[in-house]
């Protein structure tokens, strides 16, 4: 099964569709989690996901907005969609019947 960060990347890439690339995925994750996402973690995980066959990356044509640099475009494969679905289903299953708000109130001293 994929890890939490891998899931975040897959979900962000699916949401972005044809506009999924490094900087956009990073922005999406930072916005969703309110946490910083480092370039190192992002690109290393993208490599891992590609090795697992969950995504496919290609280099785009250079764009003037980025100083003439190309983008690494990300496309989620059918296996990636399956892995994301499985992860989400597991989270839902393990969370069933739990109320985090109630637990927080109970644990508080």
């Amino acid at each position: 099964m994929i890890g939490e960060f891998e899931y975040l990347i897959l979900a962000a890439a699916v949401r972005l569709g044809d506009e999924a690339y490094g900087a956009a995925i990073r922005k999406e994750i930072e916005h969703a989690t309110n946490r910083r996402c480092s370039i190192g973690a992002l690109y290393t995980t993208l490599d891992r996901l590609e090795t697992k066959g969950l995504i496919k990356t290609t280099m785009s044509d250079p764009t003037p907005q980025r100083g003439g640099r190309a983008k690494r475009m990300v496309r989620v494969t059918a296996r990636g969609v399956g892995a994301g679905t499985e992860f989400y289903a597991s989270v839902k299953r393990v969370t069933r019947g739990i109320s985090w708000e109630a637990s927080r109130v109970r644990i508080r001293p």
Partner: protein
Amino acid sequence: MNGFWWWLVEPISGFLDSDDREAVLGDVLESGEPGARAFCGVLGLVVRRQRSLWLNWQPWTILMAVILPLGFLLSVISRETSDGSAVYVWMYANNWDWALTKNPGFWRLLGETSIWVFLAYLTLGCWSWVVGFVVGWLSRRMAQINRLVLCLVLLLGELTAPRYFEFLDQYERRASGLPALPDGNAAVFAVAFYRVVFPLMVQVLVVTAALWGMRRATAGGKPGRILRAVLAAVAALTLAEMVTQEPGLWFMVGPRVWAHYSQLALWSSVLHLRRLLEPIEYWPIIFLIAHAIRKRKLRAAVV
């Protein structure tokens, strides 16, 4: 991001693959994040990438079997070449007399010396280029880090080469049982310029040629199968010639091996073979000329 941080981020990103570098620098520019944060992010990625590469056996094999021995050997040859030519430079500079120019023998000797020095440096330059080419070819993905490692090895070799000569001298004297002879070139190397600065200048030539060779090997696409085979063969022959030209190395292998070689007269066979290989060592010049002609033709075709 201001110029200072960009000045730091750009060279660091050179340790990444060209595609990675392109995408990461574009992302950094697009996100507009603060310079220090961008630098830490790119540095973090470089460290992760290098860590995963160095967890394999290939980079270690290239380091131990190619970069370290060839880098050290190149430093030793560089030192020999610089010391050999320093004696002539010192001789002409310290004994210059205009009256000598009227002597035809002087011009003949000067001509012979100049040709010897020129060929020695041409050979050194070609060997350095070939070493860089081989290192670059074997480690295209790690070219940037190996460039740095090769420079460090050559710097270290520059410092350790004189120790190697001292050790070899002592060893040879012990093996032959002959007493130490006074150094005939002591006056030359008493001058700091010939002892320190001149060898360093020669080592700069070695580093430049090696980096050039590495750049040539990593630039552009992969050559065709036939050209690859030819390049591999001539590079292997050049390295073989370079390794066998340093008899001190065979002493280092062990006295028994050395004695065995001497008894079987293998060494003289090696020397004969070396003479046949000598013209091959200049192949980088032919390669670079051919490459320049091809490039010019391609440019003309595009225009």
